[in-house]
């Protein structure tokens, strides 16, 4: 099918995708900042055009721990016309950097997994409390 989206529109979508962890765009930006490579130069590092770079950023991010990682990276590399080995290296590096960030964040930080888990637990407890209140109310009305 004929491609109908201009580079400007893809660039805007890429920008927004950098904020969504399901896409590769965020990894491309993170890799650039970790290695002090300007964004325009990352496409040269991956041997692709700027349009291919945007398309690459809009691909779903494969999980480096998944057994499908290698085949998915090859598929993405072939679609976006980038070097598969470099892409795999890039994704592994950003994955490690993200893991380090989680480990290094202080325990009370809002970004730490512990904080989120505690928040979820609190939410669960309050949900359970309100559910049991509702149940006991129902029981009382039935008795009446």
């Amino acid at each position, binding site marked *: *099918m004929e491609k*109908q*989206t201009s580079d400007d529109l893809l660039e*805007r*979508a890429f920008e*927004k995708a950098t904020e969504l962890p399901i896409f590769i765009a965020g990894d491309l930006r993170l890799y650039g900042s970790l290695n002090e490579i300007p964004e325009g130069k990352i496409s040269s590092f991956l041997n692709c055009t700027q349009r291919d770079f945007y398309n690459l950023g809009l691909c*779903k991010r494969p999980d480096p721990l998944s057994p499908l990682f290698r085949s*998915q990276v090859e598929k993405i590399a072939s*679609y976006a016309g980038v070097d598969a080995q470099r892409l795999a290296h890039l994704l592994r590096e950003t994955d490690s950097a993200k893991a380090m960030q989680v480990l290094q964040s202080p325990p009370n930080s809002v970004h730490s997994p512990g904080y989120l888990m505690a928040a979820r637990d609190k939410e669960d407890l309050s949900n359970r409390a309100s559910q049991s209140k509702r149940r006991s109310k129902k029981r009382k009305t039935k008795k009446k």
Partner: protein
Amino acid sequence: MAAKDQFELSIHGRLLAGDDPIASAELFENFQGRLVNVLRKSFWQRDESLVVDAVTDALFGYIRNPGSYDPEKSRLFNYLVLAAKRDLINAVNSKVNREKSEISMSAVEDDQSGRNNVKETVDGNAPDASRRVRIMYGRELELKLLREISNSTDRAVLALMIDDVRETTEYASVLGITNLSATEQRKQVKMHKDRIGKQLERFGKRLRGKAN
């Protein structure tokens, strides 16, 4: 089956399966530009960034939750047009509310005695009053129209009519009658369009009645 239909079904299946990392990028390459063009044509909205963001958000929403689309009910493209329009209306609403509060804030300034003083002039960058009125009337009219046309299929047909879509196949796809012969499809589509047209006429008469 047309190539466009085949592509839509295939990409939807790949996104549903969830294991194809390039399906999302292909969706953007093939749909984003077409969706932006449709929204530009059918909305008075001239703020390009709002249109582009609404389309982008609609595509992200569908990628994250492809199960929200039912291929039995409409074509993927039409579904995405409706989703993007909804996002655009929300974005315009937020923008209007934000601008309204900015205008009211900039219209009040402290005088030398320390009391608030209402200024006669407003922020030069804010939209002019007539444009704000057009935005708000457009929003109200749309809400009234959506109450009038409550059936989701009828709304999808109406969206195609508003977009000046002429092809019977587009309407047949929305109505789920692609299995009928071309003649029968034309007949059914005409019947639906006439009925919606009559509803709109009655709606218009009621609006005029209220105005008088």
